[in-house]
């Protein structure tokens, strides 16, 4: 209990102290460096020293006698750092870990992102919520390729404050010359990055020089210690000075008399009486109340989680963005953005993903990869797909218009994540560069004769019969018989066949995954047009990926899309091998052949599953006709005219 006795501060003094701390600020930062730069040692040093300082400050409330420095510092520090090392040795992946320490002035949250392999992904994750980045450099080696990469990613993620920690200065004899050399080289390099503050500090994390305690061995250095700088650097008025933005998270409706909109203010300030606009609909109203459990507030600012009521009842739901009517965000369904890919399976243009942007979720596809960025050289390189840890500048197309700002102006309303629709994994992170104006200038031409009118004239219900299955499964044979049967019944049909389409519309595409995705996207769009024209459209494509079949289903509309899985085992297909392709593929003469060296993802819930081994194709085709009849696709022309069955 001797520790307790040392500190005799009364409870009242402690209360005052604690209450004074209520106004304490918070700083989130990340540390970037390779294993050998001493990153773990630096974090360990900060955690260790600040704990001592904190205890000292408390003791100093009444007693001024206690001094740190009596502990075997090196040993304790090593223990802290060893905790991290031990995890690595056990093969436990720490991709991003968060560590905490505090001083009198600020509480700090450190994003610790070790590891080389996933560096881009992990650093981007840590940087996304950080106010500041500490870039470590080994004084002996100076700027490395990694230093440039770290600076680039920090800048891309919108970090405006950087500390260049020139570490291991003890190993270059605390040389001012060496420090200046590195500092100047970095400053010249970083001019393009638009950092608001850039502080270079010579230090030795191992011995604590200039980390929390001013070094006695570097009289020539007049700048702050790392901790002094972290405690005092001015951060974060940027969002406050931007126009008001409020993504609606939740509509608060406890009873009929109250209708509030709950969310976190993403930028700017709001006061009672301010005119706000619902970005997507353009409807406006004025702020009536800013509601909190401890009474209403006259105003609120960026970062606060509040509930707002408006003077008028206008249609607002989760996903809407409220903004000051004087300065509105972009509303578009096309945008250009930087994308960081975080998944083992690459991104293919044309494949659809879920995009969560603010509180809204839509589907999105990359329509064009403008270029990829080599993070080591900053060169722009061309690419057909984006692989794990790659950064690309892309055009994206969304399923519906969304409201957003450029990331540069607002990290909250300008950022999004992409989610895989099948695995639900977070696969990409994006930063909006600008809205593509095409979206606002190309409007849908409203047609007087619509789908319903055409279908009525043809006396039928349009649909897509999407046959999927391995090469040689019998898709085209069955589809051809089905079309003949429909034709005999007087139905208007058209067949899109994989091989035939590749001779014309898709002759520019090969068989790599990226081309297969685009192949199916185009066929999906064409089927949509044919359905719009009122036709029963038969599509016979291997279409190996679930994601693209789902995309086609979405384009066409679920009630007009019939997925037919021709489920023939690969052994049987190989045996049939009508075009001799399996033989060639197995001999290695054809690359990317589905079922051999390219995957086939079987449908999970197809409308129809056909098994045709040992069966007459006529009989199998009849099964399709029966399905259509049973599900009201082949209603008599008379009832179509009445609108029934549609």
């Amino acid at each position, binding site marked *: 209990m001797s520790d307790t006795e040392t500190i005799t501060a009364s409870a009242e003094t402690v209360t005052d102290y604690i209450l004074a701390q*209520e106004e304490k600020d918070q700083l989130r930062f990340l540390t970037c460096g390779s294993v050998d730069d001493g990153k773990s040692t630096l974090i360990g040093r900060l955690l260790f020293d600040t704990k001592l300082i904190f205890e000292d400050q408390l003791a100093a409330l009444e007693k001024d006698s206690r001094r740190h420095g009596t502990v075997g510092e090196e040993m304790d520090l090593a223990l802290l750092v060893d905790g991290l090392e031990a995890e690595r040795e056990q093969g436990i992946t*720490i991709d991003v870990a968060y560590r905490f320490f505090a001083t009198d002035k600020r509480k700090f949250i450190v994003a610790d992102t070790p590891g080389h392999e996933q560096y881009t992904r992990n650093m981007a994750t840590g940087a996304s*919520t950080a106010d500041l980045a500490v870039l470590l450099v080994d004084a002996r080696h100076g700027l490395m390729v990694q230093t440039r990469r770290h600076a680039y990613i920090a800048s891309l993620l919108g970090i405006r404050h950087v500390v260049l920690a020139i570490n291991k200065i003890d190993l270059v004899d605390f040389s001012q010359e060496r420090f200046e050399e590195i500092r100047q080289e970095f400053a010249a390099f970083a001019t393009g990055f638009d950092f608001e503050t850039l502080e270079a500090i010579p230090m030795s994390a191992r011995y604590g020089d200039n980390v929390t305690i001013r070094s006695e061995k570097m009289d020539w250095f007049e700048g702050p210690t790392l901790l002094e700088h972290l405690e005092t650097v001015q951060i974060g008025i940027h969002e406050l000075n931007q126009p008001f933005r409020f993504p609606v998270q939740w509509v608060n409706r*406890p009873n009929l008399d109250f209708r509030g909109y709950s969310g976190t203010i993403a930028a700017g300030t709001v006061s009672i009486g301010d005119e706000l606009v619902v970005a997507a609909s353009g409807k406006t109203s004025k702020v009536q109340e800013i509601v909190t459990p401890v009474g209403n507030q006259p105003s609120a600012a960026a970062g606060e989680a509040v509930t707002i009521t408006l003077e008028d009842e206008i249609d607002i739901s989760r996903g809407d963005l409220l903004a000051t009517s004087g300065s509105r965000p972009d509303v578009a369904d096309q945008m250009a953005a930087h994308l960081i890919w975080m998944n083992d399976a690459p991104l293919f243009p044309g494949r659809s993903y879920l995009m969560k*942007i603010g509180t809204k979720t839509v589907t999105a596809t990359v329509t064009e990869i403008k270029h990829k960025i080599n993070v080591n050289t900053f060169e722009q390189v061309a690419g057909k797909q984006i692989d794990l840890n790659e950064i690309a500048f892309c055009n994206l197309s969304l399923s519906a218009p969304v409201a957003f700002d450029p990331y540069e102006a607002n990290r909250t309303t300008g950022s999004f994540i992409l989610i895989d629709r099948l695995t639900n994994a*977070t696969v990409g992170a994006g930063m909006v560069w600008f809205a593509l104006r095409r979206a606002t200038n190309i409007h849908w031409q409203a047609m007087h004769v619509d789908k319903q009118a055409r279908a009525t004239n043809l006396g039928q219900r349009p649909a897509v019969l999407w046959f999927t299955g391995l090469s040689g499964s019998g898709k085209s044979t069955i589809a051809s018989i089905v079309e003949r049967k429909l034709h005999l019944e007087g139905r208007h049909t058209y067949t899109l066949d994989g091989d035939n389409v590749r001779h014309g519309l898709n002759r520019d595409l090969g068989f790599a995954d990226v081309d297969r995705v685009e192949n199916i996207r185009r066929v999906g769009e064409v089927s949509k047009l044919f359905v719009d024209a009122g036709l029963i459209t038969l599509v016979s494509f291997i279409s190996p990926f679930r994601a693209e079949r789902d995309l086609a289903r979405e384009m066409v509309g679920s009630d007009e899309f019939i997925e037919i899985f021709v489920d023939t085992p690969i052994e049987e297909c190989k045996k049939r091998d009508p075009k001799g392709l399996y033989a060639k593929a197995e001999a290695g003469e054809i690359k990317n052949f589905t079922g051999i060296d390219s995957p086939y993802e079987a449908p999970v819930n197809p409308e129809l599953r056909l098994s045709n081994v040992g069966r007459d194709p006529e009989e199998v085709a009849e099964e399709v006709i029966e399905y259509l009849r049973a599900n009201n696709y082949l209603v008599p022309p008379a009832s179509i005219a009445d609108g029934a069955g549609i």
Partner: protein
Amino acid sequence: MDTTHTDLSSDRLSNLRRLEAESIHIIREVAAEFRNPVMLYSIGKDSSVMLHLAMKAFYPSKPPFPLMHVDTTWKFRDMIKFRDETVERLGLDLIVHSNPEGLEKGINPFDHGSSVHTHIMKTEALKQALTKYGFDAAFGGARRDEEKSRAKERVFSFRNTNHGWDPKNQRPELWNLYNGRVSKGESIRAFPLSNWTELDIWQYILTENIPMVPLYFAAPRPVVERDGMLIMVDDDRMTILPGETVEEKLVRFRTLGCYPLTGAIESDADTLPKIVREMLIARTSERSGRLIDHDDSASMEKKKREGYF
């Protein structure tokens, strides 16, 4: 009006207000994105803060989800009393679940040890309850500063259909964009207090005047010394072993769990400021008061993979 704006734009939110806003944002995201969420309520100080934040997040509505307490039946009596009073006071729905098979077999910490007891009455019971009610999201009050494996856990922590956690395959989590997509049977554990430290929790309790279980405050209580820990004799299910004597000591608890597994500390801190003062000068970390983490065979990470919170 204009001057207000100028003043605001030079101000940043304080640490506590920033943490509060972040937690409220997380709680609202879960309520908005999940079909059937639940808030795990363990009665301790972190749970109390989390509940306080949930009340704020939806005001003037009530939180749109029930509370659930996984009751091992070995909690301190004061905890249960406090739990029932809190739910009554706030007008909330509470689900209490105990593992029926565990009860039938009479699983208890004295005869079966902390590891077996915790596994059956806590981890298994939690999984049972989540499955039984089909919850697709469960809030927990865990903090990243508590323990090493927590430091790397996401705010939205994905669990497979067996409620297991895969630390090597976590979803990247950027900005405040939490991915709440799950397939049938999968779920998310949501941790709104991820970025709070123990000091933040106490500061917030002090400034917001949040009610606490009396066990946190020092009082004369009957205890025995066992395995180097002071165990409170909370009811007559506890057998006093030969050589042990029940002594009345001025003690309090830094963390709350099952009474036979939770060590008391000798203390005269009977007010919040005194507790905070004591906490500020304490060198031992918070969880050292819990027997459960000392079990070598059951590290936190292993437990979490199995579905523990």
